[in-house]
């Protein structure tokens, strides 16, 4: 190498180093899974997608304890809950040992504004009299012992009534006052993290604290702890991805070095070969961090996978080097197929740029800029550093034997007919489940974890998550009033058995208007004393006993209506916050429905109510969202396929050449689809990404085989280059196929299959027979 090339190399490396430093300072990696979900259209879909990431419910960790006697687990559960309540990482902790939802002591007089007891029959002489008669009978029951303390202050038992009303319709099974699964083997806890669900580092910290507190709480017991929930998922996905990335990265790097050394017998080639890929990756990262606020971790994982194609570019240069020809001249010679490959692959990725999914747009941006930079550096910078060829692949006797043997193989033109027919047959035999419509499957969470999570949520008797009624309005009060207006229809639906029960924020926090109306109906102190005087005459109680009751009612008449802020930091606020919130300037109130037996009736109820009340079938809405989104992406893919053909046609100019180059890619795509369908796999977005990647590889292989024409020496060099390319790509994706993150495994399997098919088909269908 000359002094000039050393200088160039130094400058290039320095530039890369600066790039790394700049990106490290600037790149913000996010774990918000919604980046990979379609952009919502319309009210319903917006609610749907928002609900997935931001609701307080998403910050709840579901914790189970198992592996010991139930009584011991219950004790550990209580100790753990007490310990967690003191930690800054956690908000509310619930395990069944807490007092039931009740009005806070300091707000007791508010019970007369919150209770519905006196909506129909006001607090009058009759209700006072019948309350005293009931309490007299209670006094002659075993419960008397526990009622005595309350009686003077609350003879109508409003505190109990509210606690009853606020009690969740179903509660988990209990052992020793701690929640358990129905089989009684596992203790259950609900823990609210302060960190957002999609903050994997915050979630990891919280999980570590949880684990440490559990170790302390369990003492000598062999009990085990397990967690579930969105936060846990984001933490575990990050850990798994990181762990696997370093493992796979390590193995792939070692494999690649060995492969390149074997292929080129020169360590300089191995090192130089990494430069275009490194430049492309850095350029891609720089482009994404310039154009987007934050980059999803998955974008990075996929992006580097897709950019991996650029590792092929230097191979094409190195394998085509000839004795007596400068590397710069070789680069000029391989540039037409290389440029066509880069251009057409980039065109294909443009489809993702306009897909409407932020994560995919980032992916496209990263890949396109990365591939262009890698292609250009291979063409213009790398040749100036490349040393003279140690040996020409065209001289290798072993390669020549392989090449001759391959050349004698029959040309399977029959596949052109056979593959489409076989694929059509598979699609026809297995028509159902072609596409994955389940939104949750679009996230990279392993399905078995999702299943466990769902089972736990069922044990915790959380409401039916599929159906919701949503009321919206300009402000909080408007929404509360709207929710109250639904009460009559909802209680009728309960009576008719359409639903088991329902819950909404106005049950805990009535609207100002309703509170004022209740206030206005309360008797004043004088009236109440007269009522008590008359009622007490025929009861075993002395009227003087009820002075605290009279004082509370008098106080309730003076109070300003209860506000949400008054309930902050009480268990009630958790209920209200998750069911009453504002987004982008509009307020929403959710009505949770339990035991929905007749969704149609609830949909009709939603339609019959005001236009600001919507019935939401989350499953339906999400399937529609995914389907609409997919047809959009497919349209984009169609457009890009068309553009790709145009690029190829412009580059190759003859129909027969275009067809020969496109055939392997088209057949391979059909084969992959047929294999996946044959195995019963429903296709998702990540399969589409892999198909595009595989198609891009196939196109490259075909372009180079086609470019070598029928010249034997050049054919041998091309074979060398493509063997190195295909083997290195296969190495990376076959490793990925073993990932425990399902989407990574899906990509690994799909692309590995694609590499093998594309290479063989391009070799057998595209390559011309060598001239004698």
């Amino acid at each position, binding site marked *: 190498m000359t002094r000039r090339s050393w200088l160039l190399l130094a400058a290039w490396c320095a530039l890369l180093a600066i790039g790394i430093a700049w990106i490290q300072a600037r790149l913000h990696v996010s774990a918000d899974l919604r980046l990979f979900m379609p952009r919502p259209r319309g009210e319903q879909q917006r609610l749907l997608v928002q609900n997935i990431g931001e609701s307080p419910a998403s910050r709840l960790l579901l914790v189970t304890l198992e592996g010991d006697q139930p009584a011991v687990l219950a004790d550990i559960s209580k100790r753990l809950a007490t310990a967690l309540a003191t930690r800054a990482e956690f908000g509310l902790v619930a395990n069944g040992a807490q007092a*039931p939802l009740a009005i806070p002591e300091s707000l007791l007089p508010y019970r007369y504004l919150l209770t519905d007891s006196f909506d129909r029959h006001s607090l009058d002489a009759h209700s006072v009299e019948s309350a005293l008669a*009931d309490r*007299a*009978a209670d*006094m*002659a*029951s*075993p*419960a*008397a*012992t*526990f009622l*005595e*303390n309350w*009686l*003077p202050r609350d003879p109508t038992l409003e505190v109990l009534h509210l*606690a*009853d009303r606020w*009690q969740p319709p179903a*509660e988990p099974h*209990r052992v020793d*006052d701690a929640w358990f699964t129905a089989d009684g083997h596992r203790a259950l806890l609900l823990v609210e993290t302060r960190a957002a669900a999609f903050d994997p580092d915050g979630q990891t910290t919280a999980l570590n604290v949880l684990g440490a507190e559990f170790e302390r709480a369990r003492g000598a017991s062999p009990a085990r702890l397990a967690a579930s929930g969105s936060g846990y998922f984001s933490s575990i996905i990050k850990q798994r991805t990181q762990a696997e990335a370093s493992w796979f990265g390590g193995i792939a790097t070692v494999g690649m070095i060995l492969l390149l050394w074997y292929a080129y017998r020169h360590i300089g080639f191995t090192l130089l070969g990494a430069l275009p890929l490194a430049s492309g990756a850095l350029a891609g990262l720089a482009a994404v961090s310039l154009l987007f606020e934050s980059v999803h971790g998955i974008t990075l994982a996929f992006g580097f996978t897709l950019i991996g194609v650029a590792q092929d570019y230097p191979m094409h240069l190195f394998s085509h080097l000839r004795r007596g020809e400068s590397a710069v001249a070789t680069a000029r010679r391989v540039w037409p197929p290389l440029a066509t490959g880069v251009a057409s692959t980039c065109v294909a990725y443009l489809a993702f740029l306009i897909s409407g999914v932020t994560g995919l747009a980032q992916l496209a941006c990263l890949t396109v800029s990365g591939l262009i930079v890698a292609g250009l550096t291979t063409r213009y910078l790398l040749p100036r550093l490349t040393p003279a060829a140690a040996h020409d692949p065209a001289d290798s006797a072993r390669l020549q034997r392989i090449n001759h043997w391959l050349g004698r193989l029959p040309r399977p033109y029959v596949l052109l007919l056979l593959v489409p027919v076989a694929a059509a047959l598979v699609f026809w035999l297995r028509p159902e489940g072609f596409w994955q419509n389940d939104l949750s499957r679009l996230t990279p969470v392993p399905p078995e974890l999702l299943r466990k999570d769902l089972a736990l949520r069922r044990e915790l008797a959380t409401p039916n998550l599929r159906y919701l009624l949503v009321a919206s309005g300009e402000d909080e009060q408007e929404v509360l009033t709207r929710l109250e207006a639904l009460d009559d229809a909802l209680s009728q639906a309960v009576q008719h058995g359409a639903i088991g029960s329902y819950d909404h924020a106005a049950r805990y926090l009535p609207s100002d208007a309703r509170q004022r109306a209740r206030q206005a109906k309360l008797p004043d102190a004088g009236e109440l004393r007269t009522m008590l005087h008359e009622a007490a005459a025929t009861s*075993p*109680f*002395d009227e003087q*006993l009820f002075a605290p009751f009279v004082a509370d009612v008098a106080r309730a008449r003076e109070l300003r209506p209860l506000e949400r802020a008054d309930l902050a930091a009480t268990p009630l606020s958790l209920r209200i916050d998750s069911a009453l919130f504002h987004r982008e300037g509009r307020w929403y109130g959710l009505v949770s429905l339990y035991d929905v037996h007749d969704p149609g009736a609830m949909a009709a109820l939603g339609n019959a109510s005001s236009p600001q009340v919507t019935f939401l079938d989350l499953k339906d809405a999400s399937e529609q969202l995914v389907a609409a989104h997919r047809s959009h992406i497919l349209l984009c893919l169609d457009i890009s396929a068309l553009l790709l053909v145009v690029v190829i046609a412009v580059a190759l100019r003859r129909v027969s050449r275009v067809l020969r180059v496109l055939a392997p890619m088209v057949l391979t795509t059909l084969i992959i689809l047929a294999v996946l369908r044959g195995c019963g796999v429903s296709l998702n977005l990540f399969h589409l990404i892999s198909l595009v990647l595989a198609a891009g590889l196939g196109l490259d292989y075909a372009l180079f085989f086609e470019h070598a024409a029928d010249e034997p020496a050049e054919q041998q060099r091309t074979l060398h280059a493509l063997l190195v390319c295909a083997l290195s790509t296969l190495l990376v994706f076959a490793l990925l196929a073993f990932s425990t993150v399902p989407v990574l495994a899906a990509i690994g399997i799909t692309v590995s299959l694609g590499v093998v098919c594309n290479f063989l088909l391009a070799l057998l269908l595209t390559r011309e027979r060598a001239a004698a």
Partner: protein
Amino acid sequence: MLSTSTASSRALDEFERALRRTPPVTTGFVEYRFSHLLKKPLHVSGTLEYRADGVLARKVEAPYREITEVKGEQVRIEREGRPARTLSLQRAPQLRVLLGSFRALLEGRFAPLSQDFAVALAEDDTHWTLTLVPRDARLAKSLARIQVSGRADRPDCIAALEPDGDAAFTLLESAPAQDAVPARSALEQRCHVDAKRAEPGS
């Protein structure tokens, strides 16, 4: 009376064997309650049942009709002229303990009792007295002790004594309530309650 501070397990075992019944067990009762909230003591009468299916039922027949059934964790109260009410014992753990003690006494099984109460047995030739002091501090705030007294193989009085001096006396297998409530001292005597201990405050 031969007093023991804690019952030896052997004495309790023998005693338990003597009292053991197989459900269904039905017994009439009259209950008197003395409370500082009341102008005059209350009294009701009816039957207590412990059925073979594990349901504990308390039927009040006079002066009004009321049926309380405890089935597992659910308590159902039906009162004449009122809609039935149900409540869950999960949310009233202290009431659960109290009702549990009734069930244990009717059935004559004391093993479950010692989990929630310190149990002491005192016997002489004609009477025995079983004293249950709650272990749970929250329960102890509203219930000082339960004292069950009887002769031979049957209990005839359950006295629930509260820390504030209130008390309920349940006479079992006894004649229906008369209009007049006996004096508290007479009931205490009948139930072998040591009045001084019952009212530590006074």
